[in-house]
Protein backbone atom coordinates (compact mmCIF):
# COMPACT_ATOMS: atom_id res chain seq x y z
CA UNK A 1 0.00 0.00 0.00
CA UNK A 2 1.38 3.43 -0.90
CA UNK A 3 -0.14 5.23 2.09
CA UNK A 4 0.29 8.84 2.98
CA UNK A 5 2.82 11.28 1.56
CA UNK A 6 3.24 14.61 3.37
CA UNK A 7 5.03 17.44 1.55
CA UNK A 8 6.59 19.78 4.09
CA UNK A 9 8.16 18.88 7.44
CA UNK A 10 7.03 21.55 9.89
CA UNK A 11 4.56 21.93 12.74
CA UNK A 12 1.58 20.71 10.71
CA UNK A 13 3.43 17.64 9.41
CA UNK A 14 4.54 16.63 12.88
CA UNK A 15 1.03 16.96 14.27
CA UNK A 16 -0.46 15.12 11.29
CA UNK A 17 1.82 12.12 11.87
CA UNK A 18 0.99 12.08 15.60
CA UNK A 19 -2.75 12.46 15.05
CA UNK A 20 -2.95 9.92 12.20
CA UNK A 21 -1.28 7.27 14.34
CA UNK A 22 -3.36 8.23 17.40
CA UNK A 23 -6.52 7.85 15.28
CA UNK A 24 -5.49 4.41 14.09
CA UNK A 25 -4.18 5.14 10.60
CA UNK A 26 -2.11 2.07 9.63
CA UNK A 27 -0.57 2.59 6.17
CA UNK A 28 2.98 3.92 5.78
CA UNK A 29 3.61 7.65 6.06
CA UNK A 30 6.40 9.54 4.29
CA UNK A 31 7.24 13.14 5.22
CA UNK A 32 9.33 15.17 2.77
CA UNK A 33 11.19 18.23 4.04
CA UNK A 34 13.51 20.58 2.16
CA UNK A 35 15.40 21.64 5.28
CA UNK A 36 18.04 19.62 7.11
CA UNK A 37 16.06 19.36 10.35
CA UNK A 38 13.17 17.29 11.66
CA UNK A 39 9.97 19.30 12.25
CA UNK A 40 10.78 22.18 14.59
CA UNK A 41 9.08 25.10 16.29
CA UNK A 42 9.46 28.35 14.41
CA UNK A 43 8.18 30.83 17.04
CA UNK A 44 11.38 30.68 19.15
CA UNK A 45 13.51 31.53 16.09
CA UNK A 46 12.88 35.25 16.58
CA UNK A 47 12.88 34.90 20.37
CA UNK A 48 14.86 32.46 22.55
CA UNK A 49 16.70 30.72 19.71
CA UNK A 50 17.95 34.02 18.30
CA UNK A 51 18.97 35.14 21.80
CA UNK A 52 20.87 31.89 22.35
CA UNK A 53 18.76 30.87 25.37
CA UNK A 54 17.43 27.81 23.55
CA UNK A 55 19.61 25.18 21.85
CA UNK A 56 18.72 23.75 18.46
CA UNK A 57 17.54 20.34 19.63
CA UNK A 58 15.07 22.03 21.98
CA UNK A 59 13.32 23.41 18.93
CA UNK A 60 12.42 19.96 17.66
CA UNK A 61 8.72 19.34 18.13
CA UNK A 62 9.28 15.61 18.66
CA UNK A 63 12.56 13.75 19.09
CA UNK A 64 13.77 12.16 15.82
CA UNK A 65 12.95 8.68 17.26
CA UNK A 66 9.28 9.63 17.32
CA UNK A 67 8.98 9.38 13.55
CA UNK A 68 10.66 5.97 13.43
CA UNK A 69 8.41 4.71 16.22
CA UNK A 70 5.39 6.05 14.35
CA UNK A 71 6.54 4.22 11.22
CA UNK A 72 6.85 7.54 9.42
CA UNK A 73 9.80 7.98 7.07
CA UNK A 74 11.38 11.44 7.28
CA UNK A 75 13.05 12.38 3.99
CA UNK A 76 14.98 15.56 4.73
CA UNK A 77 17.07 17.90 2.57
CA UNK A 78 14.96 17.11 -0.47
CA UNK A 79 12.31 19.13 -2.25
CA UNK A 80 9.15 17.84 -3.83
CA UNK A 81 9.11 19.37 -7.29
CA UNK A 82 5.93 17.99 -8.87
CA UNK A 83 2.71 16.17 -8.11
CA UNK A 84 0.69 14.14 -10.61
CA UNK A 85 -2.88 14.00 -9.32
CA UNK A 86 -3.94 11.38 -11.90
CA UNK A 87 -1.04 8.98 -11.44
CA UNK A 88 -1.04 9.85 -7.70
CA UNK A 89 2.70 10.40 -7.50
CA UNK A 90 5.10 12.96 -6.02
CA UNK A 91 8.38 13.67 -7.84
CA UNK A 92 11.37 14.79 -5.80
CA UNK A 93 14.27 17.01 -6.83
CA UNK A 94 16.56 13.98 -6.90
CA UNK A 95 14.29 12.30 -9.46
CA UNK A 96 12.66 9.83 -7.10
CA UNK A 97 8.95 9.23 -7.67
CA UNK A 98 6.78 8.37 -4.67
CA UNK A 99 3.30 6.91 -5.13
CA UNK A 100 0.60 8.01 -2.69
CA UNK A 101 -2.88 7.00 -1.74
CA UNK A 102 -3.44 10.23 0.20
CA UNK A 103 -1.36 13.40 -0.11
CA UNK A 104 -1.04 16.31 2.30
CA UNK A 105 0.56 19.66 1.63
CA UNK A 106 2.04 21.06 4.84
CA UNK A 107 4.39 23.26 2.89
CA UNK A 108 4.03 26.32 5.10
CA UNK A 109 5.20 29.62 3.78
CA UNK A 110 8.30 31.39 2.55
CA UNK A 111 9.49 34.91 3.24
CA UNK A 112 8.52 37.78 1.04
CA UNK A 113 11.81 39.11 -0.28
CA UNK A 114 12.92 42.67 -0.75
CA UNK A 115 13.04 43.57 -4.43
CA UNK A 116 14.69 46.99 -4.19
CA UNK A 117 18.16 47.61 -5.67
CA UNK A 118 20.92 46.08 -3.59
CA UNK A 119 18.57 43.69 -1.80
CA UNK A 120 20.91 40.78 -2.52
CA UNK A 121 23.96 42.36 -0.87
CA UNK A 122 25.71 40.35 1.82
CA UNK A 123 24.60 41.38 5.31
CA UNK A 124 20.90 41.41 4.45
CA UNK A 125 19.08 38.55 6.15
CA UNK A 126 15.62 37.07 6.55
CA UNK A 127 14.35 35.13 9.52
CA UNK A 128 12.31 32.06 8.71
CA UNK A 129 14.36 28.95 9.41
CA UNK A 130 17.10 27.60 11.68
CA UNK A 131 19.63 28.18 8.90
CA UNK A 132 18.63 31.86 8.70
CA UNK A 133 19.24 32.37 12.43
CA UNK A 134 22.58 30.56 12.22
CA UNK A 135 23.60 32.92 9.43
CA UNK A 136 22.58 35.95 11.50
CA UNK A 137 24.14 34.92 14.81
CA UNK A 138 27.83 35.64 14.02
CA UNK A 139 26.85 39.25 13.23
CA UNK A 140 24.49 39.61 16.16
CA UNK A 141 26.90 41.34 18.54
CA UNK A 142 26.65 44.21 20.99
CA UNK A 143 27.45 47.54 19.39
CA UNK A 144 26.56 46.46 15.83
CA UNK A 145 24.08 48.62 13.96
CA UNK A 146 21.02 46.61 13.00
CA UNK A 147 18.30 47.86 10.69
CA UNK A 148 15.10 45.83 10.89
CA UNK A 149 12.97 46.27 7.80
CA UNK A 150 9.32 45.77 8.71
CA UNK A 151 7.61 46.54 12.02
CA UNK A 152 5.50 43.39 12.22
CA UNK A 153 5.73 40.72 14.91
CA UNK A 154 8.91 39.14 13.53
CA UNK A 155 10.58 42.52 13.15
CA UNK A 156 9.65 43.70 16.63
CA UNK A 157 10.58 40.41 18.31
CA UNK A 158 13.94 40.54 16.55
CA UNK A 159 14.39 44.16 17.60
CA UNK A 160 13.65 43.22 21.22
CA UNK A 161 16.25 40.44 21.28
CA UNK A 162 18.78 42.69 19.55
CA UNK A 163 18.22 45.61 21.92
CA UNK A 164 18.72 43.33 24.92
CA UNK A 165 21.93 42.05 23.32
CA UNK A 166 23.18 45.63 23.03
CA UNK A 167 22.89 46.17 19.28
CA UNK A 168 21.95 49.63 18.03
CA UNK A 169 18.57 48.93 16.51
CA UNK A 170 16.50 50.89 14.01
CA UNK A 171 13.14 49.55 12.84
CA UNK A 172 11.87 50.97 9.55
CA UNK A 173 8.20 50.51 8.74
CA UNK A 174 6.58 51.67 5.51
CA UNK A 175 3.09 52.07 6.99
CA UNK A 176 1.89 54.69 9.47
CA UNK A 177 2.54 52.50 12.48
CA UNK A 178 4.09 49.18 13.48
CA UNK A 179 1.76 46.16 13.52
CA UNK A 180 -0.72 48.19 11.46
CA UNK A 181 -1.97 45.19 9.47
CA UNK A 182 -2.68 43.07 12.54
CA UNK A 183 -3.78 45.27 15.41
CA UNK A 184 -5.21 48.53 16.68
CA UNK A 185 -3.62 51.93 17.11
CA UNK A 186 -3.62 51.37 20.89
CA UNK A 187 -1.50 48.20 20.72
CA UNK A 188 0.79 49.70 18.08
CA UNK A 189 1.34 52.82 20.20
CA UNK A 190 2.09 50.69 23.24
CA UNK A 191 4.69 48.49 21.56
CA UNK A 192 6.33 51.40 19.75
CA UNK A 193 6.63 53.15 23.12
CA UNK A 194 8.12 50.08 24.78
CA UNK A 195 10.72 49.68 22.05
CA UNK A 196 11.66 53.36 22.14
CA UNK A 197 12.11 53.16 25.92
CA UNK A 198 14.52 50.26 25.31
CA UNK A 199 16.57 52.46 22.99
CA UNK A 200 15.21 51.22 19.67
CA UNK A 201 14.69 53.85 16.97
CA UNK A 202 11.39 53.35 15.17
CA UNK A 203 10.81 55.11 11.88
CA UNK A 204 7.30 54.76 10.49
CA UNK A 205 6.09 55.89 7.05
CA UNK A 206 9.60 54.98 6.02
CA UNK A 207 9.83 52.83 2.94
CA UNK A 208 13.17 51.31 1.94
CA UNK A 209 14.33 52.32 -1.54
CA UNK A 210 17.53 50.33 -1.77
CA UNK A 211 20.85 49.26 -0.29
CA UNK A 212 24.46 50.08 -1.05
CA UNK A 213 27.79 48.94 0.24
CA UNK A 214 29.73 51.64 2.10
CA UNK A 215 33.47 52.16 1.66
CA UNK A 216 34.18 50.38 4.98
CA UNK A 217 32.19 47.32 3.90
CA UNK A 218 29.09 48.09 5.96
CA UNK A 219 25.67 48.74 4.44
CA UNK A 220 23.80 51.91 3.63
CA UNK A 221 20.03 51.62 3.76
CA UNK A 222 18.32 54.19 1.55
CA UNK A 223 14.94 55.12 2.98
CA UNK A 224 12.23 57.71 2.51
CA UNK A 225 13.70 59.39 5.61
CA UNK A 226 17.29 59.45 4.43
CA UNK A 227 20.19 57.02 4.60
CA UNK A 228 20.89 54.77 7.58
CA UNK A 229 24.25 53.05 8.15
CA UNK A 230 24.00 49.41 9.14
CA UNK A 231 26.26 46.47 9.90
CA UNK A 232 23.42 44.10 9.24
CA UNK A 233 19.84 44.21 8.02
CA UNK A 234 17.08 41.79 8.93
CA UNK A 235 13.92 41.98 6.83
CA UNK A 236 10.59 40.78 8.16
CA UNK A 237 8.13 41.94 5.55
CA UNK A 238 5.70 39.07 5.55
CA UNK A 239 5.42 35.54 4.28
CA UNK A 240 3.74 33.96 1.28
CA UNK A 241 2.03 30.58 1.10
CA UNK A 242 4.21 27.86 -0.41
CA UNK A 243 1.75 26.73 -3.06
CA UNK A 244 3.67 26.51 -6.34
CA UNK A 245 3.81 22.70 -6.56
CA UNK A 246 0.12 22.42 -5.69
CA UNK A 247 -0.81 25.06 -8.22
CA UNK A 248 1.26 23.49 -10.97
CA UNK A 249 -0.43 20.16 -10.23
CA UNK A 250 -3.80 21.77 -10.96
CA UNK A 251 -5.13 22.23 -7.43
CA UNK A 252 -7.21 25.34 -6.88
CA UNK A 253 -5.04 27.99 -5.22
CA UNK A 254 -5.90 31.52 -4.24
CA UNK A 255 -3.80 33.06 -1.50
CA UNK A 256 -2.98 29.51 -0.45
CA UNK A 257 -4.18 26.06 -1.43
CA UNK A 258 -7.97 26.25 -1.27
CA UNK A 259 -9.44 23.64 1.09
CA UNK A 260 -12.85 22.97 2.65
CA UNK A 261 -13.71 22.84 6.36
CA UNK A 262 -12.23 19.31 6.49
CA UNK A 263 -8.87 20.49 5.08
CA UNK A 264 -9.60 18.78 1.74
CA UNK A 265 -8.16 20.42 -1.37
CA UNK A 266 -9.86 20.40 -4.78
CA UNK A 267 -8.74 16.80 -5.41
CA UNK A 268 -10.42 14.14 -3.23
CA UNK A 269 -7.10 12.51 -2.29
CA UNK A 270 -5.33 15.72 -1.31
CA UNK A 271 -5.30 17.77 1.90
CA UNK A 272 -3.60 21.04 2.75
CA UNK A 273 -2.87 22.10 6.32
CA UNK A 274 -1.36 25.10 8.11
CA UNK A 275 0.12 28.29 6.67
CA UNK A 276 -0.31 27.08 3.08
CA UNK A 277 -4.06 26.41 3.34
CA UNK A 278 -6.81 28.90 2.54
CA UNK A 279 -9.68 27.50 4.59
CA UNK A 280 -13.18 28.42 5.73
CA UNK A 281 -13.68 29.09 9.44
CA UNK A 282 -17.36 28.66 10.39
CA UNK A 283 -16.83 30.54 13.68
CA UNK A 284 -15.53 33.58 11.82
CA UNK A 285 -17.90 33.13 8.91
CA UNK A 286 -15.26 33.56 6.26
CA UNK A 287 -12.26 32.08 4.49
CA UNK A 288 -8.78 32.93 5.62
CA UNK A 289 -5.19 31.82 5.65
CA UNK A 290 -3.48 31.75 9.03
CA UNK A 291 0.21 31.78 9.84
CA UNK A 292 0.26 30.24 13.28
CA UNK A 293 1.12 27.25 15.42
CA UNK A 294 -2.47 26.89 16.60
CA UNK A 295 -3.75 26.64 13.05
CA UNK A 296 -1.12 24.08 12.05
CA UNK A 297 -1.93 21.90 15.06
CA UNK A 298 -5.71 22.11 15.06
CA UNK A 299 -6.13 21.83 11.30
CA UNK A 300 -3.80 18.80 11.27
CA UNK A 301 -5.97 17.15 13.92
CA UNK A 302 -9.08 17.79 11.81
CA UNK A 303 -7.39 16.53 8.64
CA UNK A 304 -6.30 13.33 10.41
CA UNK A 305 -9.92 12.62 11.36
CA UNK A 306 -11.03 13.16 7.75
CA UNK A 307 -8.29 10.86 6.48
CA UNK A 308 -9.34 8.02 8.78
CA UNK A 309 -12.98 8.46 7.76
CA UNK A 310 -14.37 10.29 10.80
CA UNK A 311 -14.55 13.82 9.38
CA UNK A 312 -14.87 16.70 11.83
CA UNK A 313 -15.28 20.31 10.82
CA UNK A 314 -12.26 22.47 11.66
CA UNK A 315 -13.72 25.40 13.60
CA UNK A 316 -11.44 26.94 16.21
CA UNK A 317 -10.83 30.46 17.46
CA UNK A 318 -7.40 31.40 16.10
CA UNK A 319 -4.81 32.27 18.73
CA UNK A 320 -1.29 33.64 18.61
CA UNK A 321 1.37 35.00 20.91
CA UNK A 322 4.35 37.31 20.77
CA UNK A 323 7.08 37.70 23.40
CA UNK A 324 8.96 40.99 23.53
CA UNK A 325 11.11 41.97 26.51
CA UNK A 326 9.11 41.07 29.65
CA UNK A 327 5.83 41.31 27.76
CA UNK A 328 3.68 38.44 26.66
CA UNK A 329 1.14 39.46 24.08
CA UNK A 330 -1.61 36.87 23.67
CA UNK A 331 -4.04 37.27 20.82
CA UNK A 332 -7.31 35.50 20.10
CA UNK A 333 -9.57 36.04 17.11
CA UNK A 334 -8.89 38.33 14.17
CA UNK A 335 -9.46 42.04 14.64
CA UNK A 336 -10.38 44.24 11.69
CA UNK A 337 -10.54 47.93 10.90
CA UNK A 338 -13.97 49.21 11.95
CA UNK A 339 -14.23 47.07 15.09
CA UNK A 340 -15.25 48.88 18.25
CA UNK A 341 -12.07 49.10 20.33
CA UNK A 342 -12.38 48.67 24.10
CA UNK A 343 -9.31 49.11 26.29
CA UNK A 344 -9.31 47.37 29.68
CA UNK A 345 -6.61 48.42 32.11
CA UNK A 346 -3.88 51.03 31.84
CA UNK A 347 -1.16 50.38 29.23
CA UNK A 348 1.28 52.27 31.50
CA UNK A 349 1.09 49.34 33.95
CA UNK A 350 2.22 46.96 31.17
CA UNK A 351 -0.79 44.80 31.95
CA UNK A 352 -3.89 45.52 29.89
CA UNK A 353 -6.07 44.22 27.10
CA UNK A 354 -7.78 45.54 24.02
CA UNK A 355 -11.06 43.95 22.98
CA UNK A 356 -12.47 44.25 19.48
CA UNK A 357 -16.26 44.22 19.30
CA UNK A 358 -18.18 43.49 16.13
CA UNK A 359 -21.98 43.15 15.90
CA UNK A 360 -22.17 43.51 19.68
CA UNK A 361 -19.86 40.65 20.61
CA UNK A 362 -16.14 40.17 21.14
CA UNK A 363 -14.45 39.29 17.84
CA UNK A 364 -10.85 39.49 19.01
CA UNK A 365 -8.63 40.36 21.96
CA UNK A 366 -5.02 41.48 22.31
CA UNK A 367 -3.92 40.86 25.89
CA UNK A 368 -0.61 42.14 27.27
CA UNK A 369 0.45 40.22 30.40
CA UNK A 370 -3.30 39.74 30.95
CA UNK A 371 -4.15 36.05 30.94
CA UNK A 372 -7.77 36.20 32.19
CA UNK A 373 -8.64 38.71 29.48
CA UNK A 374 -7.08 36.41 26.90
CA UNK A 375 -8.55 33.13 28.14
CA UNK A 376 -12.06 34.50 28.72
CA UNK A 377 -11.76 36.48 25.51
CA UNK A 378 -11.23 33.24 23.59
CA UNK A 379 -14.41 31.83 25.08
CA UNK A 380 -16.40 35.00 24.36
CA UNK A 381 -15.29 34.95 20.73
CA UNK A 382 -16.44 31.36 20.31
CA UNK A 383 -19.74 31.95 22.12
CA UNK A 384 -20.59 35.19 20.28
CA UNK A 385 -22.46 36.33 23.39
CA UNK A 386 -23.40 40.01 23.44
CA UNK A 387 -20.83 41.91 25.51
CA UNK A 388 -21.25 45.27 27.26
CA UNK A 389 -18.32 47.49 26.26
CA UNK A 390 -18.59 49.61 29.41
CA UNK A 391 -18.27 46.55 31.65
CA UNK A 392 -15.46 45.09 29.56
CA UNK A 393 -13.58 48.36 29.93
CA UNK A 394 -13.86 48.22 33.74
CA UNK A 395 -11.06 46.17 35.33
CA UNK A 396 -13.15 45.98 38.52
CA UNK A 397 -15.64 43.72 36.73
CA UNK A 398 -14.07 40.23 36.87
CA UNK A 399 -13.51 38.58 33.50
CA UNK A 400 -15.17 35.38 34.68
CA UNK A 401 -18.46 37.27 35.09
CA UNK A 402 -18.72 37.66 31.31
CA UNK A 403 -19.05 33.95 30.64
CA UNK A 404 -21.33 33.22 33.59
Amino acid at each position, binding site marked *: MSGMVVIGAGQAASQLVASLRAEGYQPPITVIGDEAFPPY*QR*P*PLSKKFLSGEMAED*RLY*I*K*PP*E*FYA*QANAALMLNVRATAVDLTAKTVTLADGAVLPYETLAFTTGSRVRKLTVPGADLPGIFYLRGIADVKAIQPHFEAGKRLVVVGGGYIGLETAAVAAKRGLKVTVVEALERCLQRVTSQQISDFFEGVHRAEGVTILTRTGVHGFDKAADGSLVVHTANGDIDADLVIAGIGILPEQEVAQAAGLVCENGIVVDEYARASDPNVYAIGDCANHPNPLLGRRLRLES*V*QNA*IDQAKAAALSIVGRPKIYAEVP*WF*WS*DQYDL*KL*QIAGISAPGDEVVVRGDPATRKFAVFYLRDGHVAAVDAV*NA*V*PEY*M*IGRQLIAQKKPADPAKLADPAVPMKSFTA
Partner: protein
Amino acid sequence: MPKVTFIEHNGKEHTVEAANGLTVMEAAVKNLVPGIDADCGGACACATCHVYVDPAFAGKVGEKSDMEQTMLDFANEVTDQSRLSCQIKLSDDLDGLVVRLPTSQH
Protein backbone atom coordinates in the same frame (compact mmCIF):
# COMPACT_ATOMS: atom_id res chain seq x y z
CA MET B 1 20.61 13.56 34.96
CA PRO B 2 17.45 13.78 37.06
CA LYS B 3 14.82 11.07 36.65
CA VAL B 4 11.17 12.03 36.35
CA THR B 5 8.22 9.66 36.60
CA PHE B 6 5.06 10.57 34.73
CA ILE B 7 1.89 8.71 35.72
CA GLU B 8 -0.82 8.76 33.10
CA HIS B 9 -4.46 9.10 34.07
CA ASN B 10 -4.89 5.34 33.54
CA GLY B 11 -2.05 4.60 35.96
CA LYS B 12 0.60 3.79 33.38
CA GLU B 13 4.02 4.98 34.56
CA HIS B 14 6.87 6.35 32.46
CA THR B 15 10.21 7.02 34.12
CA VAL B 16 12.55 9.11 32.00
CA GLU B 17 15.87 10.90 32.36
CA ALA B 18 16.47 14.41 31.12
CA ALA B 19 19.25 16.94 31.35
CA ASN B 20 19.33 19.70 33.95
CA GLY B 21 17.90 22.92 32.57
CA LEU B 22 15.26 21.28 30.43
CA THR B 23 11.69 21.64 31.60
CA VAL B 24 9.49 18.83 32.86
CA MET B 25 7.37 19.34 29.74
CA GLU B 26 10.42 18.84 27.51
CA ALA B 27 11.41 15.72 29.44
CA ALA B 28 8.00 14.26 28.59
CA VAL B 29 7.97 15.32 24.95
CA LYS B 30 11.55 14.17 24.27
CA ASN B 31 10.80 10.79 25.77
CA LEU B 32 7.48 10.34 23.99
CA VAL B 33 5.41 10.35 27.16
CA PRO B 34 1.78 10.64 26.04
CA GLY B 35 -0.65 13.07 27.67
CA ILE B 36 1.33 16.30 27.50
CA ASP B 37 0.42 18.26 24.39
CA ALA B 38 2.44 21.47 24.92
CA ASP B 39 0.94 23.07 21.83
CA CYS B 40 2.83 26.34 22.31
CA GLY B 41 6.18 24.63 22.86
CA GLY B 42 6.72 26.01 26.35
CA ALA B 43 5.83 29.67 25.95
CA CYS B 44 3.28 29.54 28.80
CA ALA B 45 0.61 30.39 26.23
CA CYS B 46 -1.67 27.36 25.95
CA ALA B 47 -2.07 25.49 29.28
CA THR B 48 -1.81 22.08 27.55
CA CYS B 49 1.06 20.71 29.66
CA HIS B 50 -0.84 20.58 32.96
CA VAL B 51 0.47 18.11 35.57
CA TYR B 52 -0.07 17.35 39.25
CA VAL B 53 3.18 17.51 41.22
CA ASP B 54 3.60 14.86 43.90
CA PRO B 55 3.29 16.59 47.31
CA ALA B 56 6.76 15.30 48.30
CA PHE B 57 8.22 17.68 45.71
CA ALA B 58 5.92 20.62 46.34
CA GLY B 59 8.69 22.61 48.02
CA LYS B 60 11.30 21.87 45.36
CA VAL B 61 9.62 22.74 42.06
CA GLY B 62 9.73 26.48 42.59
CA GLU B 63 6.98 29.04 42.84
CA LYS B 64 4.36 29.63 40.18
CA SER B 65 4.61 32.93 38.36
CA ASP B 66 1.47 35.08 38.19
CA MET B 67 1.24 34.21 34.51
CA GLU B 68 1.31 30.48 35.20
CA GLN B 69 -1.21 30.78 38.03
CA THR B 70 -3.67 32.66 35.87
CA MET B 71 -3.22 30.25 32.95
CA LEU B 72 -3.95 27.39 35.38
CA ASP B 73 -7.12 29.14 36.52
CA PHE B 74 -8.47 28.27 33.10
CA ALA B 75 -7.25 24.67 32.84
CA ASN B 76 -9.50 21.70 33.63
CA GLU B 77 -9.48 19.69 36.88
CA VAL B 78 -7.11 22.07 38.64
CA THR B 79 -5.97 21.24 42.20
CA ASP B 80 -3.42 22.62 44.66
CA GLN B 81 -0.87 20.32 43.02
CA SER B 82 -1.46 21.65 39.53
CA ARG B 83 1.44 23.12 37.58
CA LEU B 84 2.26 23.85 33.97
CA SER B 85 5.14 21.47 33.31
CA CYS B 86 6.78 23.89 30.86
CA GLN B 87 7.45 26.21 33.78
CA ILE B 88 9.35 23.69 35.97
CA LYS B 89 13.07 23.49 35.21
CA LEU B 90 14.86 20.24 36.00
CA SER B 91 17.80 20.16 38.40
CA ASP B 92 19.50 17.55 40.57
CA ASP B 93 17.15 18.59 43.40
CA LEU B 94 14.26 17.24 41.36
CA ASP B 95 15.76 13.78 40.81
CA GLY B 96 12.96 11.29 41.40
CA LEU B 97 10.20 13.81 40.72
CA VAL B 98 6.76 12.25 40.30
CA VAL B 99 4.00 14.02 38.37
CA ARG B 100 0.53 12.80 37.46
CA LEU B 101 -1.28 13.70 34.27
CA PRO B 102 -4.88 14.88 33.94
CA THR B 103 -7.49 13.05 31.86
CA SER B 104 -7.08 15.49 29.00
CA GLN B 105 -5.25 18.71 28.19
CA HIS B 106 -8.13 20.20 26.22
